[in-house]
């Protein structure tokens, strides 16, 4: 369907990649850890190494949680747009197939939040 309008209705989308000064947006959510109320939104250069995302911004964002230090990254299960995803930590975001406004989630088996409450 289209907008009902009195004349031609054609406006630019607000959040295309060209507006982010060389960065692309990546959304990251940690399953079973609702202490963080929502997934995060990050602007990263597409050339950034995936492993650097985990060690830097993800640690800064999720590190408050006592579970974060316990994570065995070799056992983590990743999802991209809800489907299984196997990122290569040594490759860039772009080389891992991550595009502007992609959403990834990670599940940490055995770590399910404060007293197992998914918080």
């Amino acid at each position, binding site marked *: *369907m*289209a*907008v*009902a*309008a*009195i004349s031609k*209705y*054609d*406006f*630019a*989308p*607000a*959040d*295309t990649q060209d*507006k*982010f*000064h060389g*960065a692309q*947006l990546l*959304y990251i*959510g940690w*399953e*079973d850890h*609702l*202490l*963080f*109320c*929502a*997934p*995060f*939104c*990050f*602007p990263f250069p597409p050339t950034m190494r995936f492993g650097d995302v985990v060690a830097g*911004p993800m640690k*800064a*964002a999720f590190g*408050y949680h006592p579970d974060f230090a316990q994570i065995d990254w070799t056992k983590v299960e990743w999802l991209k*747009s*809800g489907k299984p995803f196997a990122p290569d930590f040594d490759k860039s975001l772009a080389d891992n197939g991550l*595009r*502007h*406004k*992609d*959403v990834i*989630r990670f599940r940490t088996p055995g770590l399910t*939040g*404060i*007293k197992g*409450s*998914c*918080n």
Partner: protein
Amino acid sequence: MDMQVAKKKLGLKERYSVMTRGLDWTPSYQKMEDIYPYIAYEGIKIHDWDKWEDPFRLTMDAYWKYQAEKERKLYAIIDAFNQNNGHLNVTDARYINTVKLFISGISPLEYVAHRGFAHAGRAFPGPGPRVACLMQSLDEIRHAQTQVHAISNYNKYYNGMHDFHHMHDRVWFLSVPKSFFDDAITAGPFEFMVSIGFSFEYVLTNLLFVPFVSGAAYNGDMGTMTFGFSAQSDEARHMTLGLEVIKFILEQDPANVPIVQRWIDKWTWRGYRVLTLVAMMMDYMLPKRTMSWKEAWEVYFEENGGALFKDLARYGIKMPKCAEQIALEKDHLSHQAWSTFYNYAAAANFHTWMPDEDEMAWLSAKYPNSFDKHYRPRYEFWREQAAKGNRFYNKTLPMLCQTCQIPMLFTEPGDPTKICYREVDYKGDKYHFCSDHCKEIFEHEPEKYVQAWLPVHQIYQGNCFPEGTDPTVEGFDALGAVLKYYNLEHGRDNLDFDISEDKKNFAEWRGQATKNI
């Protein structure tokens, strides 16, 4: 000698007819479609505008008389409240945060509603709805003004309210109510009437005003209670207008039914999402609770809305399908919302805090199916950490829903442990949603919602810093720059209630009011 004979007054029905249809005329040298250019493009068909009748049969002369009386009553009480240092009579200083939420989140909407009804009134060829829209437009600007007047007294003493209209246009969470109303006023006049007049005023307004107003009454806030009641006396008329609009449109042409149904589905959901703020206000921000969000939803939506949609069934209108999901969310909504504001306490214009033991017990009792299992462990952890000097301030920006603009905090219907993710690919870009309903709304009019001003994305685009800011300098403090852009003072307007100036000042002033020092 002449006898003085009292002139016979017109009856209500005659007076209404004279003062509405009697004032209208048929244009002779301009075409109707040139005078009313917005009336056809939404696909709504109206055959006889004279079928419209305001059930109250209120005319402008009577309107002015009763509105003047309402104003006199209101300002007498506001004066008394101010003269008597009424702000020190509220239950405790946490309460004042509900007033901050109101002035920055709701009052600016009253002003936009004023503009919206003025525009809709101008668009309709029928004199009946035109007069009703004129009245409502005037009501709405009255609400905006009286709320600003009443709350200005709090602004003299407490933080976070000093630039509410500036904040309304900028602060991340205020984009939720702002974009809701912007969506409505940028629709056509019929959709506007269904969105605000019917879905918001008739179906949902009781959940906004009655809890705020009775919350104010329960918490000793005579000022807010009074402007609330004064506004609410107009709301009763707005509700009647909203219901009349729907019935009128549906009776005019059967082809209108599916269009109206889609608008009702859309706007009930959009309005409900905005009420997330009210849900958390009721369950967390009122030191003395009136009823829980869940109870209010059951009384005002499930019972009352149930009766309404049963009545509208004769036109072929059904209960909006989002009602099923809302029923699943009612055990969780307020807790998920409060957690979000607790997370982002550094970036809001009001304070947050953890409920005390008694309040946790109240929440357990009101939410036996959800609170102890899902939310108490989270709160107890946060409380322990805060006691150790490690109060949680989430400093990473959240992912937002493209339609409602709320952070993606809502869980899957039926599974409160999983965030609900939905997405759509549109013209080469991805768009994300908090729910099936927000996704469907986008899919129906993607051209509109791709333009959304999402605060998080705008920050990353560099559009939310004061002029002249250079975000590329080393050690750039993004949060600090964004707060400056919001005109919020870090450490004063934001952060936890426990360390707030409001808390300290209230205790000191109340002490002065009751002791000779």
